[in-house]
């Protein structure tokens, strides 16, 4: 029965309840989400909540050493210089690596947008490192750039240096390893963002008298910036959670004592699960802070259509 309401503008629907629910997206197809929900609860939500719970159950030794009751782990995290310094050491790696990957990918993507001979080969070479595991990369770096590696021997022989360069087992070893694994991701992402910008927009800027610097600064960069922000976040997160290469080609107890290593130390060497969880939670918090800063910056930029095929 359809009755005109007092306002006279809306009529009551005569459709069945089932039909009305379906209009709002509530129907039997929701069951298709079931596997995803089960996995999310079993593998993420429950363990994550359990881990957070653990951080508030510090061991008696921790409570005795740092005080603070159930917050003893957090007190330890901020008060223990050996632990807290790892935040700085991780940032010192992840921020420059992420910036480097984004900065190098931009001109690369620009060049590879044009058509030229050997473009496919070059693209393949750039993307190939994605297929290499971290351990393989680390092993390769040790052999190639170690004190007795090919690179040092070659440079010594041609007389460029008289002492072998220390390129692995320190900060730079991890830096190179993170660039090797992160650059292909950054390059692929930025290429796809760039292909989303209609080339005729740049052509228009050209006919309006803008030289390449002005075109890049006034037109391409503002359109590309949201993509650069996203790419920066992804390569930053990849680099921030570095663990194997920090151990294999880094200086695990010195320059590259990253947060992931500290968490592992608490977990496997000190068997202090609550402290390991605390470090893991704090890793997430630090990452979220950086991501939030970048996203806030990104929210001030134009994010609409850029007219291209992307």
């Amino acid at each position, binding site marked *: 029965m359809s009755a005109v309401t007092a306002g006279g503008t809306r009529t009551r629907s005569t459709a069945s309840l089932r039909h009305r629910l379906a209009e709002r997206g509530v129907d039997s197809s929701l069951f298709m989400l079931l596997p995803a929900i089960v996995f999310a609860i079993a593998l993420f939500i429950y363990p994550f909540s359990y881990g957070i719970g653990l951080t508030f159950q510090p061991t008696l030794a921790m409570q005795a050493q740092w005080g603070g009751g159930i917050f003893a782990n957090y007190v330890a995290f901020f008060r223990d210089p050996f632990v807290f310094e790892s935040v700085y050491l991780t940032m010192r790696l992840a921020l420059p690596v992420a910036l480097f990957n984004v900065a190098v990918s931009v001109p690369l993507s620009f060049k590879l947008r044009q058509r030229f001979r050997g473009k496919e080969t070059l693209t393949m070479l750039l993307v190939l490192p994605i297929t290499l595991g971290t351990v393989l990369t680390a092993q390769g770096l040790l052999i190639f750039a170690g004190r007795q590696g090919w690179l040092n021997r070659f440079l010594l022989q041609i007389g460029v240096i008289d002492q072998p360069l220390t390129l692995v087992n320190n900060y730079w070893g991890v830096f190179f390893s993170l660039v090797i694994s992160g650059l292909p991701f950054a390059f692929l992402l930025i290429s796809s963002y760039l292909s989303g910008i209609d080339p005729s927009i740049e052509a228009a800027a*050209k006919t309006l008298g803008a030289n390449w610097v002005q075109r890049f600064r006034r037109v391409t960069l503002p359109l590309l910036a949201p993509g650069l922000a996203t790419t920066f976040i992804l390569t930053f997160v990849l680099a921030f959670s570095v663990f194997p290469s920090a151990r294999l080609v880094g200086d695990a107890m010195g320059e590259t004592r990253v947060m992931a290593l500290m968490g592992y130390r608490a977990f496997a060497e000190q068997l202090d699960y609550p402290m390991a969880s605390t470090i893991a939670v704090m890793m997430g918090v630090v990452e979220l802070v950086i991501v939030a800063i970048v996203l806030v910056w990104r929210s001030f930029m134009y994010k609409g*259509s850029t*007219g291209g095929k992307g």
Partner: protein
Amino acid sequence: MAIAAGTFESLELRGVGRSFGGVDALVDLNLMVRAGEFIALLGPSGCGKSTALNCLAGLLPLTHGQILIDGARVDTLAAEDRGFGMVFQNYALFPHMSIEKNIAFGLEMRRLPKQEIRRRVDEAVALVKLEQHVHKLPGQLSGGQQQRVAIARAVVLEPRLVLMDEPLSNLDAKLRLEMRTEIRRLHQSLGLTTIYVTHDQEEALSMADRLVVLRDGRVQQIGTPAELHDAPRNAHVADFMGYRNLLDLVITSVEGTSVTATDQGFTLRGTAVDPVAVGDRVRAAIRPEDLVVVPASEGASDNTNVATVSIVEYHGREFAVGVTTPSGRLLHVRSDHAPAIGSPVELRADPARVLVFPSDPSDAAALSVEERELEEVRT
């Protein structure tokens, strides 16, 4: 009006050509443009008209020839130094800038003083009647409004030459007619020298002072709209100028320029554009409006053929009729009444309006009836 065209006497294209990896997209284009002229480059898709425009704009380097303005070469200048305005088919507005900023962009690149920029942007905005929209982003405007912004952005620089690349092809039919008038008005009031690329012959005929018809990268004919409309140089130009009926026939008699041609019982008297001899294979071109349906009973009149009605379309004042000749040829004709489908009719043509072109043996193979129909579907 403060916005005015940049001045020059003549623009000359001398043997301009462009090839892509050995494939010629544009061959030997020679054209002399006087200041203030409106030139249309006309042709089907892939004929080289956009290539020609991009070469002029400097977005594509030439592979042959020169472009000169008052005798000074401009083809060696970079696109940003030529001072030509360009309007793109997809508008190519800067999506992250307001309408105002879009229009001001070129002026800012020239480092003009702030007040000067303000004044000229306001004028250009008024010119295209977009005063209420200056603070919006291009994405918030309709297609026609975006196209007006693109035009304002190009003309605000007072360019020596405005290049337009199919600017109306993304608009709906009604808006296209309005914008056609608008562009024509701007051209006349500002005295802008314009080169306009289009595949729409009606658009080109109604807007341009002179037309350049291109096909496969080669110029077919250059002339005023009237010249092209009434006296196309060859069958391709005729085809493009609305001569929808192209018939491959054989000459049976010649008297001066008046010739008779026939094929499979279809006989037609017409006017030879180039000298032909008896026995030559020719292509006769007739506009639908010059092939008129007369009732079969009238008969006995001059230059008529019989055919059967197969399609009738209502076009307002008259009917567009598709008829089939006994040999199975489909012809497009006009009629003032709606003949019954399947009924026999007689078609009458004025011999002066039947143009007979010698058929080029390579063309006949290259452009069969099916291909021509395909081309029509594409354009």
